[in-house]
């Protein structure tokens, strides 16, 4: 019997020692909150795609005492009174700042589609085809350039739509249902925003439209999200159906303008045919005497998006004006010094370097470095209790700078066509995956520095931590064994430079006045 007790005691000790059930977060955890301000003048801020918020027209709403409006209120009241538990949860989910929720949806889709097509049985590779998104392989391959662009269009379109909504909100000043009728309760912390047109409806519609264009296989899923979001706007007591109709109209028109730009920004030519990428390679080899080659098995015939450097930028006129100088030639003294550093890191993987390499890796199957910086931005947006239009603005400028950084970086990559460490260091092995494009400059470094600069502009008191993280993200690629130190340091400078163009635009849009 004694032994049985012993056995039992050991089992109980073991069970209590181990954590049995952890609550793993599958979404950003926040609730509705009091905004730090409502920016009643935001309707006059300068948008990105249109010249002013008033460019989109919205009908004048019905008066507060009109029978039509009163009938709308009655209908809202009755829907709220018959709200189910699931509907209540849905209202809590979207909160009063749904910009963050739609950004989170975008990050999830990026991670879902960030899968590189594998080889076919005959060792050839097929490219994702937007004309046949189901594939195989499925479209898109949401790699970092693709992700940066999806996030930029999403955020810019959201921001412009919100400016338009703010313009009419404060022109018409129609109060929200919960303020007109005391029997209508408000599910969120109140911020006294006029309700017509609904900024939530702008967001729901514009986000669904942009993300559906970027992730066509998700059309049904996104449609469902849009409907859930629209429903939450009524059930929260914030809007009546005519608020939603006006917001949807703005959303649809802005989305059409954004997608028209997207269809002609050059992205569709970025994954160039082999002949084009070979000619870029030859030009670089003739000019510099080196060339990057893919070392995968089987070899990939074309690097990732050789012509992404030609995509239309948001804030920079000429990409070449942001192109850094030449990297050290292989064999040179500076180059040999780098080889030693990389070999030392590979031979001595410390826990700290491994942690940094992994933390910033954001590789295949994840939300990519642009996604990581959106995740970081979300935290600070909440910390400073930004309202939804400030949130949209923060994401818009940050994602414009990230995308411009990516374009500048890709221009540099395929101009210099610089080899990766595994190509030039004999028997070199890495703890991170070597990507399918040239080394110089490092995409992580440029994306991160660009993001950090815009965040520093937005949250100046936090600037030192953003810049520190951007430098750590740059270093992570050296620790991972897939970048030279000059890829990272020059890339960081490049990212900062490119971001300045967008920050200069941001400073004059009226929000800082």
């Amino acid at each position: 019997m004694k032994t049985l007790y012993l056995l039992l005691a050991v089992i109980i000790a073991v069970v209590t020692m181990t954590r049995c059930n952890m609550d793993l977060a599958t979404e950003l955890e926040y609730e509705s909150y009091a905004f730090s301000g409502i920016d009643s003048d935001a309707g006059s801020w300068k948008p990105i795609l249109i010249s002013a918020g008033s460019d989109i027209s919205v009908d004048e709403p019905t008066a507060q005492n009109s029978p039509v409006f009163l009938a709308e209120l009655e209908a809202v009241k009755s829907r709220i009174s018959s709200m189910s538990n699931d509907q209540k949860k849905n209202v809590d989910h979207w909160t009063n700042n749904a910009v963050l929720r739609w950004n989170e949806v975008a990050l999830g889709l990026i991670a879902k589609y960030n899968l590189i097509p594998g080889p076919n049985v005959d060792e050839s590779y097929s490219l994702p085809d937007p004309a046949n998104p189901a594939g195989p392989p499925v479209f898109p391959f949401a790699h970092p350039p693709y992700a940066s662009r999806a996030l930029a269009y999403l955020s810019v379109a959201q921001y412009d739509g919100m400016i338009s909504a703010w313009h009419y909100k404060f022109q018409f000043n129609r109060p929200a249902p919960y303020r007109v009728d005391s029997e209508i309760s408000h599910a969120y912390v109140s911020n006294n925003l006029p309700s017509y047109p609904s900024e939530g409806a702008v967001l729901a519609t514009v986000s669904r439209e942009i993300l559906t264009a970027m992730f066509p296989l998700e059309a049904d899923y996104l449609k469902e999200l849009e409907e859930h979001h629209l429903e939450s706007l009524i059930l929260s007591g914030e809007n009546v159906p005519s608020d939603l109709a006006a917001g949807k109209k703005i959303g649809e028109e802005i989305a059409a303008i954004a997608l028209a730009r997207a269809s002609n920004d050059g992205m569709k030519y970025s994954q160039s045919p082999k002949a084009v990428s070979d000619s870029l390679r030859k030009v670089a080899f003739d000019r510099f005497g080196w060339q990057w080659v893919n070392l995968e098995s089987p070899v990939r015939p074309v690097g990732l998006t050789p012509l992404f450097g030609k995509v239309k930028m948001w804030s920079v006129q000429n990409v070449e004006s942001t192109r850094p100088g030449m990297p050290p030639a292989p064999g040179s003294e500076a180059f040999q010094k780098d080889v030693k550093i990389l070999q030392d890191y590979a031979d001595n993987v410390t826990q700290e370097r491994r942690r940094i390499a992994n933390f910033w890796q954001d590789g295949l199957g994840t939300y990519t470095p642009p996604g990581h910086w959106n995740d970081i931005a979300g935290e600070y947006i909440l910390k400073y209790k930004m309202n939804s239009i400030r949130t949209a603005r923060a994401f818009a400028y940050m994602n414009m700078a990230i995308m411009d950084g990516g374009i500048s970086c890709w221009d540099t990559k395929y101009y210099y066509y610089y080899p990766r460490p595994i190509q030039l260091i004999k028997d070199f092995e890495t703890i991170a995956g070597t990507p399918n494009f040239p080394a110089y400059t490092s995409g992580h470094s440029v994306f991160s520095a660009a993001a950090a600069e815009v965040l520093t502009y937005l949250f100046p008191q936090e600037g030192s931590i953003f810049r520190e993280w951007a430098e750590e993200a740059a270093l992570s690629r050296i620790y991972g064994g897939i970048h030279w130190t000059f890829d990272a340091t020059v890339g960081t400078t490049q990212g900062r430079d490119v971001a300045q163009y967008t920050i200069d635009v941001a400073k004059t849009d009226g929000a800082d006045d």
Partner: protein
Amino acid sequence: MKKYFWTLILLMGGLGLSYITMAQTPTDGLMMPKGDICFLLNYEYGQFDHYWEGETLRKNGTIAKVQRRTSLVMAAYGITNRLNAYVGLPFVSTNSTTPNGGKFAGTTGIQDLTLGLKYEAFRYQGEKGEWTAFGSVTFSTPVSNYLSDYQPYSLGIGAPQLAWRGLIEYEWNNGFYLRGNGGYIWKGYTEAERDYYYNDGSYFTSWMDVPSAWIYEAVVGKWFMDKSLRVELNYNSSISTSGDDIRAYNAPQPTNKVNMDCVGVFAQYFFKKPKGLGLVASYSRVIDGRNAPEMSSVNAGVTYQFGLFHPTN
């Protein structure tokens, strides 16, 4: 006589891509007498060049052939004649053969410390043979800072595990025996070095839930040479209770649903002289799976048993 022998069987098929079972589990039908202690030194080599991505068997030029070597030191002690305790510690190294398309560095290090108890619940000597039944519980936990989120090279799953097993055996007087065991392995959480991962949706955390699993084994064996040698054929199976599939041409991760069916052959020889010395050898192969490596493994080991508090030799 039999109860004066003991052994450790390495549960085959547990090594490799997802480490469904630990490399060391007291799962046989033997007990050590009170006060006896036994040591095992074992070396295992496993390799695979195909794996199941979901349910599709594939190869992958990025990893070419993955090799895995495990050195294990283990001790067992008879607390009483009916209760044995176990402790084991494996040292693992992994790598891909060259050439490969990924150029990933392999890993090396100490994996998980395992502690186990086995209790003889029942023994009945019939006319034609003997029935025995056992229960066991093993607990293991990582004892180095290896990264579980570095597959297929990671040393282990990086999570605490608690395995419960029930085992029943019948041995005929002519030396043939049949054994079956079934159990459940609770697997805890492992911490990755990233803040976000995808597992059929976004996870904004560095913690990954490693799926728990049901495990089964069936064994047929026979004693030879006056109980100096025994040979077994075994089949074992492991089925995760949750988890996601490896995504297309993507690396596995600890959240994957890993299933495996494995067959093997095992032999053990006990020397008459020097008394207490034994040899074990085995081969196993994963024959079907889901998110699992098509691993084949060979292993060899030496055991030495002696009375700790009543020296007999």
